[in-house]
């Protein structure tokens, strides 16, 4: 019962946030100085016929509120406008395809690995608090946190790409190569993913580690830890059965927050490594002033992060009964 109320409350809140995101997305691209129609159609790369059709479709000759209603209607039918740089290709076709998949593969793998490493090392480090290992791990985490992600990527290209020639310098696959089978393609893809994957993982693992360490240290002050010790449980059991489990709770909500940051990291990493994904698309669209693409990505990204946060809320409620009451 209570759980249901909680879920409804979270769902309503997520929908309100989504509504605000849509409103922001509409007005953000209409506050530009000069001609307001410029951002939607006014580009030399669009032919006059297409432009006329678009002006009609988005009601650009109408008052702002009519435009907003039309914008919502188009959004509901999955029409996000057409791209400038790809000469009128629908935005939906550009975003939902290879690029989104590539970004998901890169983001998903690096966030999972960073999380696992962060949780394990963070737990161990908290246990061996103030040892040499602890101090060096904390300093390392601080260093990776303080590095700009793009610079870390550049250093990895310089060291492993240029000096050691161990990883490819750019791209998602080798251009012009034909593959005899699926396996060969996957190998080439993974080979190209090493650089951006290591960059993203390194840039996130430090943060997870510190949070996990802090979280475990917090748990250590709880009374049930003393109970566990008094019961005569082994250190290993106390650490992994009792401390780690409870310390994982804050990490759940952190993952959702991190999805937000991951988009930023992915934008930088994909740009530096020329990874054919959404992050690189953002950069290209910004450079080419391709506003419909930016607006489309902004919308898709909003949905993704809001969904991720909602999922985290739900997961948190299942894991921690205190939230529900």
């Amino acid at each position, binding site marked *: 019962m209570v759980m249901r109320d909680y879920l409804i409350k979270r769902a309503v809140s997520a929908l309100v946030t989504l509504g*605000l995101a849509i409103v922001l997305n509409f007005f953000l691209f209409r506050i530009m100085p000069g001609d307001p129609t410029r951002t939607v159609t006014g580009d030399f790369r669009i032919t006059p016929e297409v432009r006329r059709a678009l002006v009609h479709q988005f009601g650009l000759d109408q008052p702002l509120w009519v435009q907003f209603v039309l914008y919502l209607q188009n959004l509901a039918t999955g029409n996000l406008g057409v791209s400038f740089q790809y000469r009128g290709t629908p935005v939906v076709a550009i975003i939902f395809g290879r690029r989104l998949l590539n970004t998901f593969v890169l983001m998903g793998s690096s966030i999972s690995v960073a999380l696992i490493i962060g949780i394990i090392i963070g737990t161990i480090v908290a246990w061996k608090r103030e040892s040499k290992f602890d101090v060096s791990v904390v300093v390392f985490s601080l260093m990776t946190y*303080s*590095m700009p992600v*793009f610079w870390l990527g550049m250093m990895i290209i310089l060291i492993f790409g240029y*000096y050691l020639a161990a990883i490819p310098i750019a791209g998602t696959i080798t251009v012009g190569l034909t593959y005899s089978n699926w396996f060969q393609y996957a190998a080439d893809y993974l080979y190209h993913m090493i650089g951006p994957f290591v960059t993203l993982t390194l840039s996130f693992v430090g943060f997870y580690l510190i949070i996990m360490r802090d979280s475990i240290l917090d748990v250590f*002050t709880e009374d049930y830890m003393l109970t566990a010790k008094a019961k005569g449980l082994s250190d290993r059991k106390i650490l992994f059965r009792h401390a780690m489990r409870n310390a994982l709770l804050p990490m759940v909500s952190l993952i959702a927050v991190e999805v937000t940051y991951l988009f930023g*990291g992915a934008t930088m990493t994909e740009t530096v490594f020329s990874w054919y994904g959404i992050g690189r698309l953002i950069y290209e669209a*910004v450079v080419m002033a391709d506003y419909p693409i930016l607006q489309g990505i902004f919308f898709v990204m909003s949905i993704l992060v809001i969904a991720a946060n909602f999922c985290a809320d739900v997961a948190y409620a299942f894991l921690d009964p205190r939230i529900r009451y």
Partner: protein
Amino acid sequence: MTVQEFHALEVKEDRFWLYRRKLGDFWRLYRRSRLGVIGLIIVLSFVIVAVAAPWIAPFEPFYFAGDPLMKPSSTFPFGTDQVGRDIFSRVIYGTRVSLLIGLIASAMTIGLGSAIGLVSGYLGGWVDNGLMRITDLFIILPALPLMLIMASILGKGIMNIIIVITVVGWTSTARMVRSQTMSLKERPFIEASRAIGSTDLHTIARHIVPNVFPLVFANGMIAIVDAILSEAGLSFLGFGDPSSPSWGMVLHYADAAGSTVNGYWWYIVPPGICIMLLVMGFAFISYSTDQILNPRLRRR
């Protein structure tokens, strides 16, 4: 001098000594933290470099001092860039831009966030509700892509970078100030202040702001870190002002010269190390201040 005037003067003086003493206490605790002192030394060194740039740098940042892309030598400690400018001098002058944008942008972030947090927490009701919805939205949206989109709409330039960082980054301060304000609002001394007929503005300025300030200050150090990193990223992607290059901008040119694939390590390593050190400096300061000012951490 009337009695009232004399009394007012006395109160003022008391206040002065109170703040002095508090500051003294803070400094005594701060000095004990090794990380905090290291951070302070790093940041102060960069401030000195920034102020003394014309005397330290061997060349003007825009002076074509040698051949393009020369390796490091005694004349050019970090070599030269693609048009023959001394990279060492450019990094030194870059300190000014990076530091200044970081400080201004974070100050504005803190200012906007505090204002929204104070209004939201003090007034409550539908104002609070509305403002917190907007805060939720900005917390949830990916910062860098949003900054890029806004920057592409506003155009290049330092002022626009500062605006973009401010508009995207105020949320965490706002939330913190709001919750602090809400808990202060319920305390007896605020009620007392209201009971003697103080205006809302007076109550906020005299009683709430001074009590919120320490946490805002600790939070401000992290805001500086975020601002410096955001500026570096935006400049690296080409939104900086070419007439006043920051470290991110130097890296932008390094990328344009193909430094990674040609092995010009001297072009990439120094600006990146500078960003990292400055950020670490502020992170250390933030960590130590937090340990002192945040009562929850003190007992552990």
